[in-house]
């Protein structure tokens, strides 16, 4: 799937990766609506048919989401942030409280740790793939991941034991 993508290919990418890409966008942006906008911006560009993808489209998508999210943050940096609409994970039955705590803990992580965790845990990427998407070295990705995971464990310590 290298080069220009047709409508069906874009649709398939959206259906297969949209969920995690949205989660990734939510991990970078203050609210879900903005994240959906960013996700759609990226896919609209693909549908317009003027994006030539060199390499894996999935990696391209993560990088595009990241760039679009940072652009969004920059252009909206003067806006006052309202209460974060951060419900972006679906909790298993009976674990809603843990889900909320997890979302809150993820939000408190530094961006660079959070994005690696999202790519690795929910995007199921290897460190190499995540590193490519984020344009960092695999070792950096791995260390950010471990730091982030340690913080999450610490924050969620009392909760997973229920």
């Amino acid at each position, binding site marked *: 799937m290298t080069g220009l993508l047709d409508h069906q290919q874009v649709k398939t990418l959206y259906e297969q990766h949209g*969920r995690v890409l949205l989660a990734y966008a939510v991990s970078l942006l203050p609210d879900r609506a903005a994240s959906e906008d960013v996700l759609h*911006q990226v896919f609209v560009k693909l549908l317009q048919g003027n994006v030539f993808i060199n390499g894996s489209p999935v990696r391209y998508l993560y990088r595009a989401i990241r760039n679009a999210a940072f652009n969004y943050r920059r252009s909206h940096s003067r806006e006052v942030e309202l209460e974060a609409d951060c419900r972006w994970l*679906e*909790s298993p039955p009976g*674990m809603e409280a843990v889900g909320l705590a*997890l979302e809150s803990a993820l939000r408190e992580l530094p961006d660079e740790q959070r994005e690696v965790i999202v790519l690795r845990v929910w995007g199921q990427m290897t460190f190499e793939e995540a590193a490519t998407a984020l344009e960092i070295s695999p070792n950096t990705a791995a260390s950010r991941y471990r730091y982030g995971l340690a913080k999450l464990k610490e924050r969620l310590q009392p909760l997973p034991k229920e």
Partner: protein
Amino acid sequence: MDPQQDKQDLEFEAFLRQFRPRTPPAFRAGRLGRLVAPRTLALAAAIVLACVIPMRFVWNQRANPGQNRNANTERAIAVDGVARVRQENPERPDSALNRALKIIPSVETTLSAFAPPGTLQNRVDVALPAAPRRKVLKRVKPDYPPEAERLGVEADVVLRLSVNRAGVVTATERTSGVVNLRPDEENASERADFYAANPYAFAIAAEAAAQQWKFEAAESGMTCFVSFTFRLTPGAEANKTAPSGSATLTPVPGSSRPGLPVLSRPPQVDGQTVKSPKRLVNVNPVYPEDARAARVEGLVVLEISIGENGSVTDARVIRSIPMLDQAAIDAVLQWIYEPTLLNGVPIEVELTVTINFTLQ
């Protein structure tokens, strides 16, 4: 890397994966084969509304040519005054003004019937642009100062009344006073002499009346603004022989909501008062969003310079409300007045204008 650590990480990852990212909106490519972001849809809706609302406004204008303001803007910003507010939407039964007037109806008494034809005519209007916090039990109309009436001097006086718990007016304070000596008309020197001898004639008359006002009793005292407008309007009979006099009272209640005592000092040229120029173009100030959110209201008084061509060349804040000053300045700088003529030559004049920011 510690294998034990790796195992723990994998377990924790598996734990995290139980929480699945929420599903994004379904892939719906429209006829254009594009996804439409929710905010794009909102923008499109806003554009449609922006087109539809003015069209509706135009339609309403055609249907009701006299009705040119909607209810929300009705008292949102009243510029230059009592007269303006009193004119707003007289036909709208649901307007704030009409609601207030239902509580205390406008009273207009013509006393000309008591005066022989050809003599002076007194007229007293009482209007309450908004419901007062306390009912007025007794209103006394001021007497038009006889000498001023004979000479044809007009004035505007605003008083602030302090009312005690029993409803008695305990103090009056002269908030502003404007006397129009009509220097460009005949007998100007007589009027100037009168004013020099009696600079407070109108204020004294207004205070004498206001001190007799009585409000209903309440648990606490209050303050209340009252605007007295002394105007000379030639009556049908008096027209041929002498000007008639009228005094208009406009009490503006409430200390926390100063309401509408909006007066302009007449323009000055080298310290001399000249006739107020007529405003040809009015631009209402835009209520700043932050002030609206903070519910900041009140009066901004500006001193403006009007150039020879009638445009406002400068605006200085005399009475400031920091969040509202800029909006007031921005608006008045767009106003255009009829050029003021002195001996047939256009001149620059200074004028004090008051802008009242009131939230619905």
